């Protein structure tokens, strides 16, 4: 079985200056991330700040090179693809619709920009293509000559989606695409993304911290913590029967509409995940309510990308017990 997108052992380190007279510290943003995604599927990436999801997005968009590991698109290393080929096939939708559009360009300029970069078509053809795409994402044609500041947040996000679609890409990397939007606008954008996926056969990597949105939209989900995938599986499986204590805590702390249910005690303590000082053993162990003595010493096996599951000593233990 071939995969549209595959990552193998993605690792990214940053050297962080600690001050003039102190040695530089190493920030482990990503550590051995393996992911696979078939054409037409949606892969959700969830996690909190410091988990490496934005670094992952940058690497998947080829905006950042991994320290180790490779990204394969249709089985080919993206570094061997060349800039033009890669950018034609993979496009982003970013979080902040206010900073993702150049304030000095008209909407038509913004949507046709990738075409101009790639030297596709004449001016008239490009404008025609832009008009078609704008119609597809629900933007009235009269917006073509307007500037971003004249549009609402939701409309701007539609412009960003139109720009991503104008090259007919295979894969869209959505990095928190609705986090900056109001609930009523978020639902419109999510509906649009689902319609486009169905109509155009798109494949999404959908990065978000909002578990309800991820659960609603994605086919399989990877939960990340401090640069590692700690749980991977089909959406129903992960959300209905989480194996990793961190996934459990995440799900418990997602405040779905449930009057009278109150806020659960997730029992995580006040330690905070610091990618500059990742503890030995299991990285989640300082906050884990179910940690035992071994967790501070032994690093759990990474999640098997083919079978899914959790990177946790508890499940390893359970498996060994069963065997």
């Amino acid at each position, binding site marked *: 079985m071939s995969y549209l997108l595959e990552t193998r052992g993605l690792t990214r380190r940053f050297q962080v200056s600690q001050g003039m007279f102190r040695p530089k510290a190493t920030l482990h943003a990503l550590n051995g991330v393996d992911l696979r995604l078939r054409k037409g599927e949606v892969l959700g990436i969830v996690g909190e700040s410091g988990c490496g999801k934005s670094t992952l997005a940058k690497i998947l968009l080829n905006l950042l090179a991994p320290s180790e590991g490779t990204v394969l698109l249709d089985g080919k290393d993206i570094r061997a693809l060349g800039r033009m080929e890669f950018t034609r096939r993979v496009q982003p939708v970013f979080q902040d619709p206010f900073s993702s559009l150049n304030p000095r360009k008209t909407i038509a300029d913004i949507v046709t920009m990738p075409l101009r970069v790639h030297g596709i078509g004449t001016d008239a053809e490009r404008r025609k293509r832009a008009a078609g795409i704008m119609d597809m994402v629900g933007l009235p044609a009269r917006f073509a000559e307007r500037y971003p500041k004249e549009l609402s947040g939701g409309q701007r996000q539609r412009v960003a989606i139109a720009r991503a679609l104008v090259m007919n890409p295979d894969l869209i990397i959505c990095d928190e695409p609705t986090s900056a939007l109001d609930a009523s606008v978020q*639902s419109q954008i999510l509906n649009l993304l689902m319609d486009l996926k169905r109509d155009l056969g798109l494949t999404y990597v959908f990065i978000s911290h909002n578990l309800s949105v991820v659960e609603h939209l994605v086919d399989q989900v990877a939960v990340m913590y401090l640069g590692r995938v700690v749980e991977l599986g089909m959406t129903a499986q992960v959300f209905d029967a989480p194996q990793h204590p961190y996934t459990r805590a995440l799900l418990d702390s997602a405040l779905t509409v449930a009057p009278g249910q109150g806020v659960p005690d997730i029992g995580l303590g006040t330690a905070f995940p610091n990618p500059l000082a990742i503890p030995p053993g299991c990285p989640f162990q300082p906050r884990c309510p179910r940690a035992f003595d071994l967790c501070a010493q032994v690093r759990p096996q990474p999640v098997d990308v083919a079978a899914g599951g959790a990177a946790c000593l508890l499940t390893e233990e359970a498996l060994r017990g069963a065997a």
Partner: protein
Amino acid sequence: MNKPLLSVRDLRVDLNTRSGVLHAVRGISFDVAPGETLCIVGESGCGKSMTSLALMDLLPRVARRSAGGITFDGQDLTRRRIAGRLRGRRMAMIFQEPMTALNPAFTIGDQMVEAYLYHVGGTRAQAVERAAQMLEKVGIGSARSRLSQYPHQLSGGLRQRVMIAMALITDPELLIADEPTTALDVTIQAQILRLLKDLQKELGLAIILITHDLGLVSRIAERVVVMYAGAIVEEGSAAEIFDRPAHPYTRALIDCIPQPGRTERGAHLGTIAGVVPSLIGPQEGCAFRDRCPVAQPRCASDIPTQQAGSHRWVCIHGGRA
């Protein structure tokens, strides 16, 4: 309901802009009982933040506040001297951005002690003792050494805990929290909300929580106020608002968010067509009528407030048919 702690009548906030006077809050009234949690919920631009700032007299300079009456424990808050005595003493406030809400130039201890010394008095040693106590109360270990740290040395979650400790150091009766967990990670958010609820029980604190997050509201509110375009469109208990929403806007807003178990995975979510009307100039009739699926011609004239017990809504339609 027993005697309200805070009573707001016909509160208005106007902002001067180049294109005219923007009526951000358009005559809202509500009460907060001692020890209760009131959530004010709405989307951006609905006037919820302006309401909270107006209560604390913290509005930006371009904004003007007027009110039929704001009383706190029977005292007239619209009078400068009384408000000055109550603000930071019996009513406190915390904000959305824990990263910027603390002054980077002073230690945590400095900033906590300051308000206590000003309002309560006593020696500095007593104030430091009290600050350390408060830090422990909000779940920060080794409180003493934390007091000499600077804000940039703490994580966002810890800073918000410090903000809460600082707000509660004078033992206030009312805490106004403006999107206190929006900037935080979900697990941290759950912990902070849980902490607020525990402290509320322990201290008998009334909380006004301003948020856009309906899920959050459903979990912690006793009473809910839904705002749209500067006005209150519905008010009631959490159960009333979420199980029997009466206003079409409330219903539409709840339908917009994916709810595991209720919405089918991958199915279309509810949407609200159109955009929020301009807040500049007066508004005749119902502000939601252009986007409302059940609008009638008479929505353009005066809309009655309907009531069923403590449940109130401003609509021509009576509850869910």
